[in-house]
């Protein structure tokens, strides 16, 4: 069944959208990743204009992160104070990201910017994930090795404006969390991602937060940052396609719930390798589009928007 999307102004199969939402939802539920970094490039591949894909995906992430954050709030695994500090940075970052996005859009370079960001981040994340899960598999095969608990005593302790974060059991400066939030906010606006894949490792390794509050806190921050991003895209670019978002949501939220059920039951190392390979494959696909001479050198864009 073809559905005409009012804002994207293209006609796409509803089942393809539901399916994409479902698959990415299952992956995100299983691995606790937002899935935006997979969904947005997949939307490019099925012919959604990149600007619409980015804005609409931000909107979809509001739903999936809200659903996830609810579960974490119930389990009290959200550091609200840390989340709010990250949020301050995130909102600032989203604003900066939108300014960069719209400036490059006026130059006709926004597709390039979005794709370059994807190549860089998917490449890094994909290879890190691949190496990590490969190591985990080797470890389990070679017998169990006690896990080392890292207690970084880095620069986060030496900077001013220290605050006590009770839930996380930390007493650190607010500057690093604000900077982490800022970076994630910029990425959210430019790439249409929640940024969990950057924030989660940053919270563990840079801020030194305990693992059990990391996912909940990042989801909490992502709801607001992607919500704000949605609003900024909707008011400056008119590129949020609600019909597209709803179809992705339906597949996505159901998939995420299913995925989180699988995730608690399965040993995920092997699957994590698959996810890593998928991420790398998407990265290579986008990179090739940039590197191989395109069959059509010309492209048309709407000039009335700037």
């Amino acid at each position, binding site marked *: 069944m073809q559905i005409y999307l009012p804002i994207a102004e293209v006609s796409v199969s509803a089942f393809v959208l539901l399916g994409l939402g479902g698959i990415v939802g299952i992956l995100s539920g299983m691995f606790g990743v937002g899935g935006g970094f997979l969904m947005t490039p997949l939307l490019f591949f099925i012919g959604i204009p990149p600007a619409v894909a980015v804005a609409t995906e931000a909107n979809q992430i509001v739903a999936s992160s809200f659903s996830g954050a609810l579960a974490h709030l119930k389990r009290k695994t959200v550091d609200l104070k840390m989340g709010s500090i990250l949020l301050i940075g995130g909102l600032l970052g989203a604003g900066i990201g939108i300014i960069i996005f719209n400036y490059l859009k006026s130059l006709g370079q926004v597709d*390039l910017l979005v794709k370059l960001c994807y190549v860089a981040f998917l490449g890094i994340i994909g290879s890190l994930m691949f190496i990590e899960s490969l190591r985990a598999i080797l470890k389990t095969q070679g017998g169990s090795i006690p896990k080392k608990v890292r207690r970084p005593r880095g620069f986060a302790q030496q900077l001013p404006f220290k605050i006590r974060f009770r839930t996380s059991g930390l007493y650190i400066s607010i500057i690093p969390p604000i900077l982490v939030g800022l970076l994630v906010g910029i990425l959210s606006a430019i790439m249409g991602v929640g940024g969990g894949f950057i924030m989660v490792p940053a919270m563990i390794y840079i801020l030194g937060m305990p693992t059990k509050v990391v996912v909940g806190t990042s989801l909490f921050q992502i709801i607001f940052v992607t919500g704000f991003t949605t609003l900024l895209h909707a008011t400056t670019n008119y590129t949020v396609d609600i*019909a597209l978002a709803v179809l992705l949501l339906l597949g996505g*939220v159901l998939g995420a719930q299913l995925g989180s059920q699988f995730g608690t039951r399965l040993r995920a190392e092997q699957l994590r390798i698959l996810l890593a390979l998928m991420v790398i494959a998407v990265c290579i696909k986008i990179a090739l589009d940039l590197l191989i001479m395109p069959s*059509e050198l010309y*492209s048309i864009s709407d000039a009335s928007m700037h």
Partner: protein
Amino acid sequence: MLRLILLILISASSAIAESVVIGMDKEKVGITATFDGSQILLFGAVKRDKPAPLGNIQVIVTIAGPSEPISVHRKSKVFGIWMNTDTVEVDAAPSFYAVATSSDFSSTINDTEDLRYKVSIPRAIRSVGAPMNVLDAALFSDAVIRIRSDQGLYQLLENTVDIDEQTLFQTSIEMPADISDGDYTARILLTRGGNVIDEFTTIIDVRKVGLERFLFNMSRENPLAYGLMSIAIAIFAGWAASLLFRFFRTT
């Protein structure tokens, strides 16, 4: 110049002798959620006050979508990456343009008349385009035609207008699913021996309807409310999903 005046005089005088009456199967095209392109059937007749002069009559039907400003980008290789490096702004190019003719294009209308009435695709594009002051501007307008032809947005349909008894004619034109909305101008040209003897234009109203129209208009006219609504829907969906699954888990 004299020739042009003469041509106008000739066509003006003969237009009285032979004129065109037309009908369409639809004067409105509604873009709904399940819109998958549309077909427009145009039919008509040649009205005559006196017996037809010698030579076969030919009919040209054009449908032009609303014109909008576009930017045309050209990619070239910079540091190994293909990126947009040249841009030409075109003030107005029709978002859709189809020409259907009753015979081969060149035998239905001569070049002078094509120039006057802007019938062929390149003429229709350039006529509304801005002065393109890039050296190879022609390449850019060629690219617009090529890209939009590939998308089915620009169509040259030769030998697709059926003429019956030199009087009745009909044709159908396909519009793809990804057309933009607005007033589409349908034009019927009657020609004989390559010269235009009558012209008739009418408007086809192509509009998003129902929910599609509501959402599109809201996103442009009230973007803040639209954005907030999008977020509200997302929040609700997220909440509903977790509720639903908690229910299933407990039962």
